[in-house]
């Protein structure tokens, strides 16, 4: 391999050249403000936005006017959750979510708790990362106004049964929000059959541009209302003021169109490469463990713990491979992944986890190269690992008397 292999497609994706091509005219020739209603420049920009709204709506079976453009999924999560908490505060103040949600959901909920605007139930998950539906049902109170459960987890790829969750929300008359950032464009989404009322999505996870996302807001059955977070010109049906990022929106739309057209073949290709990766690693190395659900997972996601090898040291060895680690040392917090912790993965194994994120531009040759590099580095680091040595000598690492700092 002459260049770096990028296998961190859950963090972000490279933009598809077809998306860039669609965007370019909107930076220069068609630079108008989509809100300018009285001249050609504005009409052209508006036409671009309208077309994108249709492309995005089609991918998730929504109506175009139900797509509210934002700066990305974090803003969508904030707008959806805080907007509902504020607008429906007379009705109730209880929110149900899960421990493995993205920080954009968890920290939004915590902010509402801190300011006394909501009470939040954080549902535990099973060893695969899924919530228990009975648990969810039991958590509903007469004050519950919102259920927020993600579609596919960004670390372990576990897919939640949105249809069943949507059904429970409908039965109880509760608004259902889903952060579908990782799922949209990769696996089928149907806001109607899944009973979704609010849904966060973003362009840059599906080969579109960064800085452009959307919140789906159901308009009928029920019509969902939101208190806006920003005051201004009343764009996006009054829910999100601010001049539209026309070029970004056009790119996001094109990315959605391509994702819809190619989803079936692309997902099959991802699954094939993921199996190639998993088989290669598991056949050549002992003491490796899969994190997340064996079947109900994103096609491009593989999360593996390489016991006795600390994740960051492995990343450091994989200089020409971009993957990500659930280890403490990659973040400033020094705590290993809260997602793996919620699954019941021991901290000693959480420190050894690596997330592989396959994407549209990866090839089977790259997968073979990554297998070779990972196997080589894991073996090298295990030769250096006191834990591997102890385990091979039959010492029980769990009962060993460790000297903690």
């Amino acid at each position, binding site marked *: 391999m002459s260049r770096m292999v990028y296998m961190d497609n859950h963090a972000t994706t490279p933009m598809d050249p077809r998306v860039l091509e669609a965007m370019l005219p909107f930076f220069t020739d068609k630079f108008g403000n989509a809100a300018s209603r009285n001249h050609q420049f504005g009409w052209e920009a508006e036409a671009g936005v309208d077309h994108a709204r249709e492309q995005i709506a089609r991918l998730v079976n929504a109506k175009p006017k139900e797509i509210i453009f934002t700066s990305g999924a974090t803003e969508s999560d904030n707008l959806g959750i805080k907007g509902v908490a504020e607008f429906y505060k007379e009705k109730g103040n209880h929110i149900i979510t899960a421990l493995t949600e993205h920080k954009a959901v968890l920290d939004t909920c915590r902010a509402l708790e801190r300011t006394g605007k909501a009470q939040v139930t954080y549902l535990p998950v099973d060893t695969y990362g899924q919530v228990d539906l009975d648990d969810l049902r039991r958590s509903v109170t007469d004050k519950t106004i919102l259920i927020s459960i993600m579609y596919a987890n960004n670390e372990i790829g576990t897919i939640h049964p949105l249809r069943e969750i949507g059904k429970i929300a409908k039965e109880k008359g509760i608004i259902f929000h889903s952060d579908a950032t990782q799922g949209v464009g990769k696996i089928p989404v149907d806001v109607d059959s899944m009973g979704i009322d609010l849904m966060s999505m973003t362009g840059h996870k599906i080969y579109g541009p960064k800085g452009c996302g959307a919140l789906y807001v159901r308009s009928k059955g029920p019509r969902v209302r939101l208190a806006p977070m920003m005051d201004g010109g009343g764009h996006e049906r009054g829910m999100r003021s601010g001049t539209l990022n026309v070029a970004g929106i056009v790119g996001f739309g094109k990315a959605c169109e391509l994702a819809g057209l190619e989803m079936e073949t692309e997902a099959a290709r991802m699954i094939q490469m993921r199996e190639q990766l998993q088989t290669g690693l598991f056949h050549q190395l002992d003491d490796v463990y899969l994190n997340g659900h064996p079947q109900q997972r994103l096609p491009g996601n593989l999360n593996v713990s390489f016991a*006795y*090898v*600390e994740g*960051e*040291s492995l990343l*450091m*060895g994989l200089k020409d491979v971009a993957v990500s680690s659930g*280890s*403490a*040392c990659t973040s*400033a917090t*020094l705590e*290993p992944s809260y997602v793996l912790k919620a699954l019941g993965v*021991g*901290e*000693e194994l959480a*420190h050894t986890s690596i997330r592989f994120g396959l994407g549209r531009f990866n090839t089977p040759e790259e997968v073979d190269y990554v297998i070779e590099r990972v196997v080589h580095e894991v073996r090298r680091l295990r*030769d*250096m*690992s*006191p*834990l*591997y*040595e102890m385990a091979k000598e039959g010492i029980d*690492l769990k009962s060993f008397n*460790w*000297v*903690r*700092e």
Partner: protein
Amino acid sequence: MAYSNKVIDHYENPRNVGSFAKDEENVGTGVVGAPECGDVMKLQLKITDEGIIEDARFKTFGCGSAIASSSYVTELVKGKSLDEAMNIKNTQIVEDLSLPPVKIHCSVLAEDAIKAAINDWKKRKGSDPAKAASNE
């Protein structure tokens, strides 16, 4: 996070990796840290009867900076007397390897590993048992 060249060098070409033979005399072993904390260092020192460190081995589970810190101290302690080795401070490791603030705990662990290995040797030699015990 960018690593210093010294950290990269020790990570890529670790010095004195391994373990001394089990039955080898004059070896003190220190194991510090814990798997759930993400760092475990095992440092072994071969010490002459005169109290001079003549050789060292390490194995480390941890990030690149932890590996580099332990590799670095195996070189640092060689030829030193026990008193000199006991006086090695983590700040010296931080400076010499240019460790960033979030990696200071790696240097603390390396300092602890030196002390633990020396105390283990003293305990095995039966000299100064009280001090060795107080460091348990």
